[in-house]
């Protein structure tokens, strides 16, 4: 029956974008007033069965707050591997902030970065060093002679800049649209 299949497809689409458990009430609200509790139950059953086969990577779970789509537990290793691979090409907000401090205040030391950010940033600095976005550029001649950090050539390439002098000031960035609106 097409109607039932359409309902199942709609349930799947909703659960797939929700990212959290969805209650039966919310599902019925989204699907429209004509959908009975039985019809919804049937549609959800169809979704569940469709994912039971080994060709599907997802599973319909009934949890405290309602229903949710999740990845199959037996595929967790692949998902974790993917997230690990992807993390290498991503920057966390902490890394982004630290990179910004090095870019705008270089040469700069870890204690100076910690002071500005208000948290210990040693781990983030290490990540940025590994990604070759910053480099060690000597030591500061103060107590403890901490290492000084600067941005790298790779950093300039990433931002499409010819040299550090091309890094826009914060004022310039802020003005990018201070005038005429759209």
């Amino acid at each position, binding site marked *: 029956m097409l109607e039932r299949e359409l309902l199942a497809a709609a349930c799947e*689409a909703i659960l*797939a*974008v929700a*990212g*959290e458990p969805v209650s039966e009430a919310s599902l019925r609200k989204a699907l429209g007033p004509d959908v009975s509790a039985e019809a919804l139950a049937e549609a959800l059953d169809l979704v569940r069965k469709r994912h039971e086969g080994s060709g599907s990577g*997802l599973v319909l779970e009934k949890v405290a707050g309602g229903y*949710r*789509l*999740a*990845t199959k*537990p037996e595929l*967790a290793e692949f*998902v974790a591997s993917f*997230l690990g691979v992807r*993390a290498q*090409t*991503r*920057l*966390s*907000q902490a890394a*982004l*902030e630290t*990179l*910004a*401090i090095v*870019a*705008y205040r270089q040469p700069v030391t870890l204690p100076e970065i910690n002071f*500005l*950010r*208000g948290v210990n940033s040693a781990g983030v600095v290490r990540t940025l060093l590994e*990604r070759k976005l910053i480099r060690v550029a000597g030591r500061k001649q103060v107590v403890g002679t901490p290492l000084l950090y600067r941005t790298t050539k790779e950093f300039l390439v*990433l*931002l*499409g*800049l010819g040299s550090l002098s091309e*890094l*826009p000031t*914060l004022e310039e*960035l*802020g003005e*990018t649209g201070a005038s*005429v609106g759209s």
Partner: protein
Amino acid sequence: MGAVALAESKGPAVILPVFEGPLDLLLFLVRENRVSIWDIPIATICDQYQAWLRAMEELDLAVAGEYLVLASWLLAIKSRMLLPKRSKGEDDPRQELVERLLAYEKVKRQAAEIAGLLSLREGVWPVRVALADGPPPEEMALEDVDVAVLGRAMRAVLDRFRREHPPGLVLAPLRFTVAETMRTLWDLLRRERSFPLLSHMLTRPDRLEAMTWFLAALELVWLKAALVHQGLPFAEIYLTPTGNEPNWEVVADA
């Protein structure tokens, strides 16, 4: 191009299109007059253009400076068209305008193509199934990092730093100057012979004022105008005058 209703002499109710800019208006006029973009009757178009500007002004639509710049350009072309041609090879005074119009017309068609693609994609949402162990941390793909992102991150750092480190005494308004307080303190010392600095400071309603008294006392001691006595640590600090009155002109300048 949106539209605003306008009652005008031309007809019962004319729709006034809302233009994206002077080039948009000019293109509209070329189309309305069914003339070739390669042979624009400048005198006619120039007059109509100015009529539109007046209509827009009457409606209190903000007429940006760019519209006026194009208006004067049209006038300049119009007057050059009236001059006799000096030689056959001379450029058509409309040439540059035609090029600008063609380029803008192309932009509009490209914008329409993009709008078309976007409308096809309306209602397509990315799938984002939740992870068993909570949502992944907020991260940004390296290739999406640009100077604007970097600048925003720096601004976030600086804003947070300012919130967590409110400005110190240095930036407070100068309601109490050290020089004035030195004068007051000196007068007090001469009169009283002994002055309890600590309790006076601790009873000031304003932290800044207390600091000013402290600095004034230090200055007087430094200038050898007063002596400090304290019997025990944390006990009252007494000031006594030495009889060397400071040079007030020098103090005021400092």
